[in-house]
Structures are given as C-alpha cells and as structure tokens.
C-alpha cells in the first residue's frame, strides 16, 4: 500500500471506504444507486472506472467571443453556463471532486475592464449559487492568492465556504488568482517559518508533510489529486495549474473552446480516461 501522501495512493482507496468516512447526510438517491450506473452505462461509461477528481482549465472564453464578434464579457458569461452544466453533470455521474481554474496569476495582466468584470462575475456566481450548493450537497472552496481579490469577493467566498462546509457529495474548488508555483512557494514559506520556530526540523520535511501544507489540503480531506485534467481550446500546456497535484493525472486536451464544452465533450474526456492504462510507475513509466 502506498503511503497516503503520494498522489498515486488516493486512487487505490476503495470507494466504499470513502463513502463510510463522509458524514452521514440525508440519504441521497444519487449516491451510487443503480439509476446513476444505468445512466452511465447508457452513455458507454462504467461507474467504477470514472475519475474521482476532475480538474479543468477553462480556457477559450475570450476567443469564443472574438470569433462571434462579441465582447469578451459575453464569452465569460457563456463560460459560466458551461461550468454550471459541468458541475451538474459531475454531481449526476458521481464524480466526487471538481477543480476549475477560473483565474490565473497571469490573468491579472489582462485589461482592467475585463479583470473587473470577471471579479464581479465571480462574486455574482458565488452569491447566486450558494442556495443551489446547499440543496445539492456541494462543498465550495476557493484557492489562490486572496490578497489580490476585491474585499467583497473575499468576504462572499469566505461566507460561502462556511455555509457549505458540511456538504460532502461534491467538492467544488475554484482556483481564482491561482498559480501552482506560488502555491509551492507559499508552502515552503510556511515550512521555513516552522523550522525557524523550531517546531520542525528541516530534515523531517518529506512529501507527506509538504503535501499537507498545500492549499488543496490533506489527503484525508477528500480527493486532493486530480485523476483527470481537461484543458480546452487546444493549448498543450499546464500553465501553472496544480503542478504538484497533477503528477499522475491523465491529461486530456481538446480543441473545443470552453463555452462550447458540453455533455458530449465531457463524455469524450471520460471515455478517454476510462480507456487509459494507469500504472503509477509500477510496470512502466
């Protein structure tokens, strides 16, 4: 059995163990009941070989709008609808965690008008969705460098996180103002401080300890490592998203722009994941 800090280890936990450790909520008809399995089979997917945690880089809103001769704000609104659809589908198909890359550190260099619009959009989306999250059992978390976000957005995301803290059906993580390298540097700073305070010896820092310091939290919290990482709009890069956590993730690249990413594309990504042979270095690189 691999040690739990290793990204590969979480994938080997049997699903029944995961279900037992989550707090006993209202019995939900969606949790592994046969209608879900049937719906999946109907679409050519097997429930047991679906990814537990899907990460998505929502790229292509501005390009989508430009192609239609519309302002980028329309593209971002369309992107919002695509994300809501993806959240709905993930919940319906029993995917336990979804991480979406909404705004990267590099995006701060976009025109101020667009950045302000996006911040307003995030605030509105979180505000409008809290009721839905509570109903559907979705737990929201926001990761990234909060200090750069407008105060109102910080406040509302904190409140939403608090309100949905006890939900367990789907962990939705929004990465806003996020950079993978910064996350690692941040963890390094925290550990350096602990070493300084003599709470920790430098020699004792290992992968487990380091992984715990990352924003995505401990392995026991849920599913910190994505099984599948989808990137839209044809870019073949990771662009500073979940560097540490995506060590063993299956990558799926598609040319579809994010606002056009719908059920059919999602199914394609999941089928592709299903057909992959994941070895975690054991038989082969």
């Amino acid at each position, binding site marked *: 059995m691999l040690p739990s800090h290793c990204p590969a280890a979480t994938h080997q936990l049997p699903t029944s163990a995961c279900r037992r450790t989550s707090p006993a909520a209202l019995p939900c008809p969606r949790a592994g009941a046969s209608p879900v399995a049937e719906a999946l089979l109907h679409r050519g997917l097997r429930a047991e070989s679906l990814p537990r945690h899907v990460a998505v880089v929502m790229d292509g809103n501005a390009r989508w709008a430009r192609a239609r001769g519309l302002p980028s704000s329309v593209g971002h609104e369309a992107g919002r609808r695509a994300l809501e659809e993806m959240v709905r589908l993930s919940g319906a198909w029993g995917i336990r965690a979804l991480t979406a890359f909404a705004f990267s550190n590099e995006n701060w260099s976009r025109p101020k008008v667009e950045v302000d619009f996006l911040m307003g959009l995030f605030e509105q989306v979180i505000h409008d969705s809290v009721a839905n999250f509570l109903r559907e059992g979705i737990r929201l978390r926001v990761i990234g460098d909060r200090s750069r976000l407008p105060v109102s957005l910080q406040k509302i995301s904190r409140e939403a996180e608090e309100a949905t803290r006890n939900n367990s059906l789907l962990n939705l993580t929004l990465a806003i103002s996020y950079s993978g390298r910064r996350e690692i540097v941040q963890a390094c700073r925290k550990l350096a401080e602990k070493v300084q305070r003599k709470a920790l010896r430098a*020699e004792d820092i290992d992968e487990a300890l380091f992984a715990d310091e990352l924003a995505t939290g401990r392995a026991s919290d849920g599913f910190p490592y994505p099984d599948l990482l989808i990137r839209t709009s044809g870019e073949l890069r990771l662009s500073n998203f979940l560097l540490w956590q995506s060590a063993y993730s299956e990558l799926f690249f598609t040319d579809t722009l994010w606002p056009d990413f719908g059920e059919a594309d999602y199914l394609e990504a999941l089928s592709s994941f299903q057909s992959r042979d994941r070895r975690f270095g054991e038989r082969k690189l």
Partner: protein
Amino acid sequence: MTGTRARRGSTTTSHDSQKAQENLHDGAPSSSLTSCRLPSRPATQNPKMEKPDELITTGVLASLQNFIRKCIVAVISYGPMPKHIAFIMDGNRRYAKFRSIKEGSGHRMGFSALIASLLYCYEMGVEYITVYAFSIDNFKRDPAEVQSLMELMEEKINELLENRNVINKVNCKMNFWGNLDLLSEPVRLAAQKLMASTAENKGLVFSVCMPYNSTSEIVNAVNELCTERREHAGNCNGNSPNNGVHSDISVEDLDRHMYSAGCPDPDIVIRTSGETRLSNFLLWQTTFSHLQNPDPLWPEFSFRHLVWAILQYQRVYPYIEQTKKLAKKLL
C-alpha cells in the same frame, strides 16, 4: 493532442549503440548516423534484432542521406528552434513485446534511439536535452527488471567513461538529476565520475533523470532552502524579526535549489507511445512547456519524428513566448 502515426512495423532507429560509438571515433558526430535507416526506406517486418553488417549502407547512399538530413535541418532552422527538449522515453517494454524479443533488449534499443536523438538534436543546435531514464516509482517493479536496468545503465555509463574523448568531441556536459543515494554503489560512483569528468565542457548539456521524482525534487529544494534560511537566521542571532526571513522566499530561491538550477525550462516535453501524463517529471519546470505525445514507441522515435515535433513547436511559438514573458514578469 499531438500525435504522429508511425508504422509500427518499421524498424527505424534500430542501430546498435556500439556501432554508433565506433562511428563517433571516426570524426564528426553525423558520421555515426550513416548506419541509421531513414524511415522513408521500405521496411520489412523483422522480429529479430538486425546484425551490424546489415546496417552498413554504401558510401553514396550514406552521403545522400546525410545531405538530405542537413538540408532539412537548415530549413527548419529558419524558424525559432527550441533550446531545451525533454524526453519521456516510454514504450521500450511494449516494443520488445511487439517484436517478440527479450524484454531487456527493448531497453537496449531504447538506448540506441536515445544516442541517435541526442546526435540529431546536437546537429540542430539544441543546447539542453533532458531525459527521464528511471523514476523512483520504478523501483517498485519486478526486481529482476530493475536489476537488469541498473546493469544496463552501469554498462552504458562505463562505456561513455572509457570513450571520454567521444563526449568531449561533442563537448557534452553530463548531469545526473535525482536522488543518487537510491542507486547501487557501482552505478552511483560511475555516474559521479562521469559528471566530474565532463563538468568543464561547455557544449550540449545532457541531463539524465535517474532515479527521479519531481515531487521529491521539490521537497529536496524546500529542505535545502529551509536549512539555508535557518543557518542564515542563526548567524543573525535573533536580530532580525522572524517574519523577515521567510516572507521573501521566492520562486527564484526554489529554482536555485532544484536539480535543474542553471538550465532553462524545457521548451518541449515529448512523451512517446501516446500516453498523456507527466508521471511526476519536471512538474516545476514544465509549467509553460509545449507537451507532445507522439504515438511511436520510444525505440521507434527517429529524425522525422523529431522534425515534426519541432515544427509543431514552431507553429505555436509566438503564443507560447508571449505567455512565458507575461508569466515571468508576474511570478
């Protein structure tokens, strides 16, 4: 997803590594490639490894191949060329299985393909090459396979040590990145000797990641950085406030402690055999690299696949450069 369809039946770069090194003795690196078959030749399905005699081509044909290759290199050099290419050499075992040859031979042919690719890259003016030779996770494999891989590596490193003038001719500086303590004594000593003997070379930088895991590289860097900071704080002896020491830890600080300190980030990461994963390889360094997943297995990876990879890179180059510059400004 970038993919190139290679005919699995063709035996493209299946020249013996020993042959390659013998030819290197003769002079310019390109002469070793006269023993390679270009994929445009009709290929026969040959399940057994070819004998060295069959690989020697006639003088005229060899010169023609050389000339064609030089022309192609000249043409693609008009566009932006990558400075650093990283390879995940996946597919050796599958290659051996398809050809019904002994498994160890798959790795040996993989090594031949590696030397060939190295020389092609050198011809094209690529300055840094990094390969993922062995992952720390691979220690979990069948002990017999691990043992044979270690023996192969020891053998090849010793060969390179003996033919040091070969490396020096290409002016190659060799690096071994990874947790070398996990290697057995003879392999580790050989690797350290090779690194020491090529440390002064200023040409192509060839880095072999073995045994390597990006997560342990990052933890190692954090470890070293924390120790460094603690010693620095110890020297100041409580005169500076606690916060001052840590809040200025930056990306550059961590960069300095990575095994890859001093090397630029890879421009292209090529993982053969069509798998789309990073498998814990250079996670920190490849954040803006162009990821490619050609279908051929590693022993089949040849000159035309490399050219295709570079052409793909050139196609997206303007966009990548723009994002990289932006990111470096903000990080």
